[in-house]
């Protein structure tokens, strides 16, 4: 707008009124708004000059726009303690003064920005975890983890609940999350990002991988259909064969008093996992609690450590 000035015919009229100084406009209270305000103020002044009307002697004060008014309000400024992020200072503040964004450093390596370097798989995993939390909470409103209700509630979720695709989103995100975790580890391995100083964070990552698989595994049972109980049965049958602690495991028969085996199907590893000798209602409740409370809680804590350590270990990896 300011560059239109030379084109407007100003044929030696009376001297132009001085353009309003930025300090005069209320919108310029924040430094970020100063530049646009000055630019808009210049144009009407030129037009009035063109009309050859006696130039008004009072300084032109543009009315602040709605957005400016909002941004100038005490409420807005109580939330965002920096101006519009178009200067280096304000952009840094945008990251530093935001609890979520300050997971990031203010500057990142150029390669850390490149999708062909990071594949964005860690970020997508976290995103999918958030999707799981949100859709999972919505599903919990409708789901009762008992043999009597579980299956019926699953059907009701799809048929009687508005927007009944939450279970679909939840399930596909879960599968996708397993894949993104694998690919994230793949990338971290291929760039050697587990090497010093990031050894510990790689370990946290391995635990998070296990937790992701366990989350998916415990969730697999909850629909309480044939697919669910038999997948969990097959998966948990292995626990029977735990050395010493499983009743079909090696060496467990050595733990006995005379002829009485102390490790049997009623107290072995699999029993502890399932809360019974087979996948039943006790298993359902157990897996529900693990799935909804315990594992997400542990995963959240470890994720906080994981993200924090990324920064402490020098950000997204790059050549030393």
């Amino acid at each position, binding site marked *: 707008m300011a560059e239109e000035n030379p084109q407007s015919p100003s044929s030696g009229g009376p001297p132009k009124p001085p353009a309003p100084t930025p300090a005069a406009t209320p919108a310029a209270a924040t430094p970020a708004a100063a530049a646009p305000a000055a630019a808009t103020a210049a144009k009407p002044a030129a037009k009035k000059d063109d009309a050859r009307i006696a130039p008004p002697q009072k300084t032109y004060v543009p009315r602040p726009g709605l957005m400016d008014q909002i941004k100038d309000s005490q409420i807005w400024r109580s939330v965002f303690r920096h101006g519009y992020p178009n200067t280096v200072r304000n952009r840094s503040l945008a990251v530093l003064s935001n609890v979520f964004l300050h997971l990031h450093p203010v500057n990142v390596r150029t*390669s850390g920005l490149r999708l062909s370097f990071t594949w964005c798989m860690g970020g997508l995993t976290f995103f999918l975890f958030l999707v799981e939390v949100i859709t999972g909470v919505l599903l919990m409103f409708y789901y009762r983890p008992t043999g009597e209700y579980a299956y019926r509630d699953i059907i009701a979720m799809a048929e009687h609940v508005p927007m009944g695709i939450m279970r679909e989103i*939840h399930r596909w995100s879960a599968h996708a999350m397993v*894949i993104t975790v694998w690919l994230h580890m793949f990338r971290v391995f291929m760039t050697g990002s587990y090497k010093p100083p990031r050894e510990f964070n790689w370990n946290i990552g*391995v635990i998070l991988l296990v937790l992701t698989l366990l989350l998916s595994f415990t969730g697999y049972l909850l629909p309480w259909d044939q697919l669910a109980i038999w*997948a969990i049965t097959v998966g948990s049958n292995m626990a029977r064969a735990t050395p010493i602690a499983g009743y079909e495991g*090696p060496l467990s028969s050595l733990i006995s008093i005379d002829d009485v085996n102390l490790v049997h199907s009623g107290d072995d590893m699999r029993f502890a996992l399932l809360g019974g000798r087979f996948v039943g209602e006790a298993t359902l409740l157990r897996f529900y609690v693990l799935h909804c409370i315990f594992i997400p809680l542990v995963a959240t804590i470890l994720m906080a450590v994981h993200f924090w350590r990324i920064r402490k270990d020098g950000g997204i990896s790059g050549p030393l």
Partner: protein
Amino acid sequence: MKEFFNALADPSRFFLIFTVAVFAMLKWREFFTAPKVALTIFFGAVVFFVWAIRDPGFKANITKPDNIPIIFMLFLVGFFSWLSLYRAVKNDRRIDRGELPEEAVENPKKVLTWPDLVYSEFLCMLIGTAVLLIWALLLKAPLEEPANPNKTPNPSKAPWYFLGLQEMLVYFDPWLAGVILPGLIVNGLMAIPYVDTNPKGNGYYTFKERPFAITSFFFGFIVLWVSMIILMTFLRGPNQAFFGPFEPWNLHKVEPTVNIQFSQIFWEQWLGTSRPTGWFLRELPGIALVVGYLAITPMLLAKTVCKKMVAQMGNPRYLTMMIMFLIMVAMPIKMVLRWTFNLQFIVNIQELFLNI
């Protein structure tokens, strides 16, 4: 044509082809990562899928809702293997010319998190949301009949990401395949940063500077983990019998199992006597074999081929790495023994449920 693929997908051939393909890809990576070659392979895979999906049995197996993510994973793993090797080859060429890797050249210039990083994160989130919504709208989450403990489906399979382990059940006893191996995989992954003392290749893609590490990872991840998932998901049907991709799932197909124990081979075939009755003496050759494999091989290698490695890493690191590596390699060895000699167990102590 379909018979040809059915025959090709037999577990032993499938595993052999997969292994050879992965090693060939790593060996001739310059050729395979050339965009033209990679695109040809990609389109070949797509054409195969389009052609194969016209087979009703194949289609029914592939389009099971819970199997769709495996197809995604296959293409994604293929794509990212290509991408990482492509960038590694590019960097290796630069290093050969005496230049710095790409990442090292561009990294001294840092960019601001806001707006650059936040913007691309936001974009990824939007795309992720869109993909999830479309996926959820197009494909219903599977729901079968209500749970019924008295009715076992055939085949019954674990969730898809554990199917590699379930495939291992064909070759190992449950205590190994279901408990020890997963534990070792987790521990092995955790040990990686501590046993890999190679300081090179930290923070950039390269192959030449760490060929052993990358080859081992490709072998463990792609050959042993991903390919076994494919085998178990798509190529095993009722009674865990093997079915080719275009073979109808016949409920009555039972694979004849001939199980031979190592003790039988040792005492009856080699020595020509009957097996001793006590389990310790009977299984002594097998135990010696296993202990020898895990204890003596590292020592032999340390004195011969791996001298430099031991000097570099020190004994504790070398032993940890070698034992993890030998156990990983033991999987294909056991599989091959199973296919060639019908060997079931090397150590077979039924008295203690201890089978190896």
